[in-house]
């Protein structure tokens, strides 16, 4: 018996030692420790980490631990962390998702900090309001961007075809791309990537036709015939050898690294303007940028200025003030703004933009000039996307592939897109 007792006491002793070891290690932190999460390329991570380090120099008692992921892995990761009551303090937000997160109470309202640590008065109303949901400020604009056509000017000129330029129509663009294809410098190289499955490109086309992805009532803002004419235009370009074939386009994983321009398959890409920095970093030849082609000379440009991304604070953060201090450092202090540059878009603050522009290299300067050039003709920000909107981008890509691989006609593609989109939106 005594031997048993001994063994038992050893066991319990061991267990309590274990529990001590497990439960008494934390609780040492005194200064504010914040976590931050963002999506983006390595280029963005480098810039963000530099800004974090500089902020630490300015405010040594605030430590920020950053983590980042690619766009498609980012949202699952964020959602699971929020659901697990383990949300990072600082959350990079997208215009599409901020409504879902804010309305579900996952983000902290920041109105009370405006003027008190958050100096965003010179953003202009539109750029402040792009972070508002139902009248309250849940995100701070990290940069302004718009859709853009990025192209390799030298490659176009070599074929004698006319490169994309401001004010070109889609018809001219298609003719030029086909001309490029007839004189292409090497096999397997095309004038342009195929944008028929890219939602931002399709949206731009809709806006040129005075339509939109979503109507004010949250229903679809377009009809089957709109999709069909979009598919038909690209089908014409594709069949005439003007853009990459379907199986090459299908290799595009909707990021800079796998775009046909970067992989050396095409001379033109359809992208977001802030990505110009990233595209140039990965492409040897010098790239240029211009606005989308238009459906007719007199049509709207289809462009609008969008917050490329927003910075939000988690509703569960214990250090909202410190988080706001860091956001302010990123958007309203010359040091932070200079470190981020225009990789997240053009700074919304006029004062910051002006002081930054003088220090920029040619690539970034071209991007700022592009935004300045299209600004007089941009339209209003589109209405809040309804629930389920995120899935429609994938539906568009899939239906566009069915057309591109010749499984269905552009007209059938239009019907299918609209019926699947309606089904998805009707779903709870």
């Amino acid at each position: 018996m005594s031997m048993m007792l001994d063994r038992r006491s050893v066991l319990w002793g061991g267990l309590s030692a274990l529990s001590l070891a497990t439960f008494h290690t934390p609780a040492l932190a005194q200064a504010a420790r914040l976590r931050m999460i963002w999506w983006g390329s390595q280029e963005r991570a480098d810039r963000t980490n530099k800004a974090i380090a500089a902020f630490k120099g300015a405010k040594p008692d605030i430590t920020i631990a950053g983590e980042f992921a690619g766009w498609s892995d980012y949202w699952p990761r964020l959602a699971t962390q929020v659901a697990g009551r383990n949300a990072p303090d600082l959350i990079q937000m997208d215009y599409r998702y901020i409504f879902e997160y804010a309305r579900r109470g996952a983000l902290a309202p920041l109105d009370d900090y405006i003027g008190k640590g958050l100096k965003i008065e010179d953003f202009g109303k539109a750029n402040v309001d792009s972070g508002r949901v139902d009248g309250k400020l849940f995100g701070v604009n990290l940069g302004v961007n718009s859709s853009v056509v990025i192209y390799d000017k030298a490659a176009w000129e070599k074929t004698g075809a006319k490169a994309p330029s401001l004010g070109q129509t889609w018809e001219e663009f298609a003719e030029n791309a086909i001309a490029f294809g007839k004189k292409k410098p090497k096999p397997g190289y095309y004038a342009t990537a195929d944008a028929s499955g890219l939602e931002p490109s399709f949206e731009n086309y809709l806006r040129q036709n005075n339509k939109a992805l979503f109507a004010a009532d949250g229903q679809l803002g377009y009809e089957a015939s709109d999709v069909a004419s979009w598919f038909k235009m690209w089908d014409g370009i594709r069949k005439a050898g003007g853009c990459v074939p379907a199986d090459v386009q299908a290799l595009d994983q909707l990021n800079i690294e796998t775009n046909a321009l970067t992989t050396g398959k095409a001379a033109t890409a359809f992208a977001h303007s802030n990505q110009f920095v990233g595209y140039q970093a990965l492409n040897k030849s010098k790239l240029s940028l211009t606005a989308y082609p238009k459906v007719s000379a007199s049509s709207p440009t289809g462009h609008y200025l969008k917050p490329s991304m927003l910075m939000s604070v988690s509703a569960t953060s214990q250090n909202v003030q410190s988080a706001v201090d860091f956001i302010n450092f990123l958007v309203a202090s010359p040091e932070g703004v200079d470190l981020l540059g225009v990789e997240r878009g053009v700074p919304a603050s006029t004062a910051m933009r002006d002081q930054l522009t003088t220090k920029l290299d040619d690539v970034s300067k071209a991007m700022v000039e592009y935004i300045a050039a299209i600004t007089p003709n941009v339209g209003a920000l589109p209405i809040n996307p309804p629930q389920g909107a995120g899935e429609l981008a994938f539906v568009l890509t899939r239906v566009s592939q069915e057309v591109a691989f010749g499984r269905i006609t552009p007209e059938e593609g239009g019907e299918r897109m609209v019926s699947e989109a309606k089904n998805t939106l009707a779903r709870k």
Partner: protein
Amino acid sequence: MASQTETMHRGSRTAALRGQSAFRRMLDRNAAGYVFLLPWLLGFFGLTLGPALASLYLSFTNYDLLQSPDWVGAANYVRILTDDPKFGAAMRVTFTYVILSVPLKLAFALAVAMAFNRGIKGLTLYRAIFYLPSLLGSSVAIAVLWRQLFASDGLINMALWQAFGYEGPSWISNPDYALYTLVLLSIWQFGSPMIIFLAGLRQIPKDMYEAAEMDGAGKARQFFRITLPLLTPVIFFNSVIQTIEAFKAFTPAFIISEGTGGPINSTLFYTLYLYQEAFGFFRMGYASALAWILVVIISLFTAFSFLGARYWVHYDD
């Protein structure tokens, strides 16, 4: 009478006492064992059984991770089974994959095992090398490599061009071929069934072959009359394990299609569809229902395999 009830009382009390002490004695005797089992028990209840039961509950709800689950009864199951074209697409892809990859992989594994069994020099080394793909096969790196191999200007097409002057399509991003590149990837990971086959082949007594040879049976006849029948238990084991593995395949399709199951849903494995619903569109309830349907499908498959086994599996006793 009174004394009788008293005895009964006393009796039950002593029984209870005895029971208690028996329990204590049992605890004393086995406490150490349970403590050593604790990590596994915690893992099983906390990380396997708990979440599994939670997902069963969630499958009857709408749950978007951010708001609390909303009870909807069997609505998710009804939608999956009656009104979900993507479920149909995912089933087609998954069954095609299982039906193609399992027999091909097993046949290949058996062929390699038989080659090894003829007694070659440096067997251990070869066995290790041939096993390597199985260790690496489900990793992200290999899926990325596969993507490079079978892309439009990948190694495969370069070789085809050099050898035959044939300009191949982009295998990995063409809906006609994408799934078959994944089947190929699966066959390439033949290592673990191969090792098991090899062990099974070793069990077959040599004298049987000698006797058969004396009786004038050729190699083919020996294979079909001796090797295959005596190997059936091993074939059965391998096929059940590989079928379950194939139903659960996820990583290659996820990496190769960047989680989209594309092009045109041609690589939309069931698990990938489940993942999309859960983490792409935040329909955790719907995804849980999909997961339970997969559990049922795999269980049925396994059950039928065991039922069918008595007709073809030959246990040597």
